[in-house]
């Protein structure tokens, strides 16, 4: 114990960081600040070691809590105890629940019979490899976005567009060239204010590609990859954010890149 003079009050405010500032740091991590607040807090974190330590400590708590409680996909049997006046309704609901559970049970098997295409697996692995990188996450940074687009369009032999994920709080970090199953592939990395990362993987438009893929999901532990094809090109969006959020971003991204997500619903 170094500085034990501070009373252990629940507000935990110490001399350097006020309760208001602590709330701002908390909101900053949860991506709940306005643009102006976010900029102000980011600046504070950059110049004040105590604030930076607080942010790091809070993020560590979040990660530890998530590690403690993982979602249990194993279905629980819900017994619907019929009451006289609900008898008919309840019996139908039991059927509904049973069907729901069956769907849950059969979905993974279905997935095993239809393994994800190679490009989706490559994308997933590329996320696992590059997303944790601090210093070499990308080859070309977002500050040179024009160069990045020109370079990768040339290598993939088609005109690429980098969709904006700004409305989801993710900004482009940059991109890199990767070897793909048939020719070069591109990976674009995005990051939000709390440091979470997403990658968007794109292949060249190979005429060899016969299969078309609806938006589907590949999952490895906490890591999820939504993938699809548009005009012979494969796309995959990977990340470790919640499934619903990632799915929503995937649908938007698919549309932004000329695909029609409605076809897949």
């Amino acid at each position, binding site marked *: 114990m*170094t500085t034990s003079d501070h009373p252990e009050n629940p507000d935990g405010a110490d001399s350097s960081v006020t309760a208001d500032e*602590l709330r701002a740091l908390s909101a900053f991590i949860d991506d709940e600040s306005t643009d102006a607040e976010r900029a102000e807090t980011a600046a504070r974190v950059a110049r004040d070691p105590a604030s*930076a330590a607080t942010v790091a400590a*809070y993020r560590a*708590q979040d*990660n530890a809590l998530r590690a403690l409680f993982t979602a249990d996909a194993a279905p629980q049997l819900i017994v619907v105890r019929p*009451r006289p006046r609900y008898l008919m309704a309840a019996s139908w609901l039991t059927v509904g629940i049973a069907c729901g559970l069956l769907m849950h049970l059969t979905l993974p098997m279905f997935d095993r019979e239809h393994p994800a295409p190679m490009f989706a697996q490559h994308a997933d692995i590329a996320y696992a490899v590059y997303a944790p990188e601090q210093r070499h996450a990308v080859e070309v940074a977002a500050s040179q976005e024009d160069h990045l687009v020109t370079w990768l369009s040339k290598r993939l032999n088609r005109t690429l567009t980098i969709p904006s994920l700004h409305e989801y709080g993710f900004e482009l970090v940059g991109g890199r060239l990767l070897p793909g199953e048939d020719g070069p592939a591109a990976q674009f990395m995005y990051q939000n204010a709390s440091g979470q990362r997403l990658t968007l993987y794109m292949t060249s438009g190979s005429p060899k590609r016969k299969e078309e893929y609806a938006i589907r999901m590949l999952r490895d532990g906490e890591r999820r990859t939504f993938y699809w094809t548009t005009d012979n090109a494969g796309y995959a969006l990977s990340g470790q954010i919640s499934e619903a959020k990632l799915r929503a971003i995937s649908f938007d991204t698919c549309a932004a890149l000329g695909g029609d997500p409605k076809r897949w619903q």
Partner: protein
Amino acid sequence: MSFETDLVAVLPQLRRYARALTGDRAWADDLVQDVTERALGRHSGFRVGSNLRAWLFTIMRNLYIDQLRGKRDIAVDDETAPWRQMAAPVGEVDGLVLRDVQRALYCLPVEQREVMLLVCVEEMSYQEVSVVLNVPAGTVMSRLSRAREHMRVLLGEEPGRKSASLKMVS
């Protein structure tokens, strides 16, 4: 998508939250059972198009608080407190020993614990949490901030003290 299918889709999250909140598997399973039964019984009380997850979490939260009162407030240091029967987790995440984090979590007052779990584990927005708990979003923000600081103190990392997690900043 039918109401029942949507409900089934939320079950894994409900169960995770029930376990985290109670710290007791059996209690959690009973809670999920009760919530599902009530949700099916009060199906008509759910406005189509509103947030089903928040609605279910609210039912669970209210049930839990009622049951907790019935148990006459389990003292946090009580050897018989349900969470003490939980398997001790092994390992560390970001320099925090998971066992310590588990212990600290159940030392928090329930109002702080629930906010922390809803935001950090269930990844709900402050707005969604405010619906679940029926309090203003500003209250969610200050409770969460207090919970995080409280936990930091419980984990022995007073503000400003050098800790392993400082290595995270690079």
